[in-house]
């Protein structure tokens, strides 16, 4: 993926050299977004056709474009099992990368990510609470919410942690990276302790559910779950263009953002809610899938620069593509068994995160 991106970068920069205005990366950014728009359906079909059963890409394409009937088992596998899963993968990847990019802009730091600074842990606590205590004294409150209970609880957990974190780490418009990361560790530990307590009292059935969920997986994807998170994620994606201008101004600091006409407090509230909603929804259905929110925006900043008008949509697209590829890998590497996708993204993402730390440690004062 990385080497392909680099090659893309070279092609685009040679194109860029002919461009009329120097230092204007918007043409390049639009090109990258166009390429990603093309890559998404390809990755989508690729992921749809890969897996333990040999429902092949060719058969699938024939059924879509030539109207040839698929075998009955293939139809079930593709439309009832893989399609919701792949659609969910795309949604989850898009929201992970988008919330990463928004959070990085908000904290003015490329290392901020819901997974790294404990927001996902807060969301997980909310979700685990529902899984474990859902049938107990909480039942009367949860029942009416139906399948929305889990994402809502995760959203509440994510919102509480993001708001706390921002309070702690940001003073006078400047975010201390050290405080942010340390507070994130403490918040994650605290949420982890409560989650642990809940796991301790969980029964066997719940435990199995929790373990698989906690490692991060798309295996449980259903149309119902998709319907539960769909609206939240769609809302967060739709909010992105409106956040872009504010995030750009915020890159110059809160005072300057105000000078440029951004009502900073209100903007921060909206951004925090958007991040928490996206993270909550994602954690609720897929557990802890890490690093997509750091990897995708960072690669794109190298390629098209940090202008959020382009960075946000491009991040959502690249996040979706990356997660589809990761999920395909998770399903095929040890087939017929499958790896939790969180293991795949961590295996690729964690080293990337360390490489990033090396690259930027001269710029960011920790």
């Amino acid at each position, binding site marked *: 993926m990385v080497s392909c991106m680099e090659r893309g970068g070279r092609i685009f920069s040679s194109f860029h050299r002919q461009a009329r*205005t*120097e*230092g*204007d*990366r918007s043409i390049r950014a639009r090109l990258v977004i166009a390429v990603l728009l093309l890559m998404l359906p390809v990755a989508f079909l690729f992921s749809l056709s890969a897996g333990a059963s040999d429902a092949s890409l060719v058969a699938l394409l024939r059924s879509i474009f030539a109207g040839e009937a698929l075998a009955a088992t293939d139809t079930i596998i593709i439309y009832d099992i893989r399609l919701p899963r792949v659609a969910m993968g795309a949604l989850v990847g898009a929201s992970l990368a988008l919330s990463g990019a928004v959070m990085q*802009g908000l904290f*003015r*730091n*490329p290392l901020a990510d819901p997974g790294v600074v404990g927001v996902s842990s807060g969301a997980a606590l909310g979700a685990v609470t529902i899984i474990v205590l859902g049938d107990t004294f909480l039942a009367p409150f949860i029942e009416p919410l139906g399948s929305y209970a889990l994402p809502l609880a995760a959203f509440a957990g994510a919102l509480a942690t993001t708001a706390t974190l921002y309070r702690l780490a940001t003073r006078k418009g*400047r975010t201390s990276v050290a405080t942010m990361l340390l507070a994130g560790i403490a918040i994650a530990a605290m949420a982890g302790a409560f989650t642990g307590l809940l796991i301790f009292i969980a029964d066997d059935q719940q435990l199995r559910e929790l373990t698989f969920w906690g490692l991060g997986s798309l295996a449980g994807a259903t149309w119902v779950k998709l319907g539960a998170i769909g609206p939240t994620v769609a809302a967060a994606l739709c909010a992105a263009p409106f956040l872009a*201008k504010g995030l*750009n*101004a*915020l*890159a*110059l*600091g809160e*005072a*300057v953002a*105000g*000078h*440029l*006409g*951004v*009502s900073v407090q209100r903007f921060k509230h909206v951004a925090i809610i958007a991040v928490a909603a996206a993270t909550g929804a994602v954690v609720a259905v897929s557990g802890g899938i890490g690093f997509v929110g750091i990897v995708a925006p960072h690669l794109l*900043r190298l390629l098209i*620069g*940090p*202008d959020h008008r382009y960075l946000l949509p491009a991040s959502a697209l690249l996040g979706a593509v990356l997660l589809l590829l990761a999920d395909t890998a998770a399903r095929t590497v040890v087939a017929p068994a499958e790896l939790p996708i969180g293991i795949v993204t961590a295996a690729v993402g964690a080293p990337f995160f360390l490489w990033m730390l090396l690259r930027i440690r001269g*710029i960011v004062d920790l």
Partner: protein
Amino acid sequence: MIEASGLSVAIGVKPIVSEVSLKARAGEVTVIIGPNGSGKTTLMRALSGEIPYAGSIRMNGNEIAGTKLGQLSAMRAVLPQATSLAFPFTVREIVRLGILDGRPGGAAQSERLPELALERVDLAGYAGRFYQELSGGEQQRVQLARVLCQVWQPVEEGVPRYLLLDEPVSSLDIRHQLVIMEIAQDFARNGGGVVAILHDLNLTAMFADHVIVMSGGRLAASGARAEVLKDDILARVFQCALKVNALPGGMVPFVLPQTACSGAP
């Protein structure tokens, strides 16, 4: 006109600016001088609508506290004493951030504006450089170019606009100090208003139409440059036995910016 009356600012419980009344007219360069910590920056932050205040500040007749930020941003641009940048933007991308949506002139004009503004601050050809890789003085001029983009026309629809500059020349070489002050002067000559905080008394003498002296959070003096730049006022405020229009004794050379009639080489 920016008109403050009975303006006080407290940060926490600490009063920083007390009972300041001033007028900064459109068409004039108003310069604020005063020792470190005398409240100049705080005063300017209040004038720009950044912090709450007691008393009254009117910009073109509108009370700042009751004016929407979006409306303020169309009326005035602010160059802070220091700006930090979070991500690796190019110079052009930074300058472009000063172009606000919905400005008259249309897209075609605003796409050319960053280049024009950069040329104005003597940074033509810097558009493609990364901001973080520039020297401090170059960064300061990039920020000024961004600020200029925000209020490119000093007068819009008959309404004057304002430049609020906090130590705009603090890290510039002498030639660029003059270049920047001439931009400010031009802006005022074309009908806009400029409020600038300066430490250089000679530049103040050269460019200020109106001088405001701050000391200990209060207004120590204000008026035309000849009324304010006087031995007794300067000695009292800066606690330094300065003499206006006096040559130093002995053989030590001295250089006055006034001797260069223009910033151009």
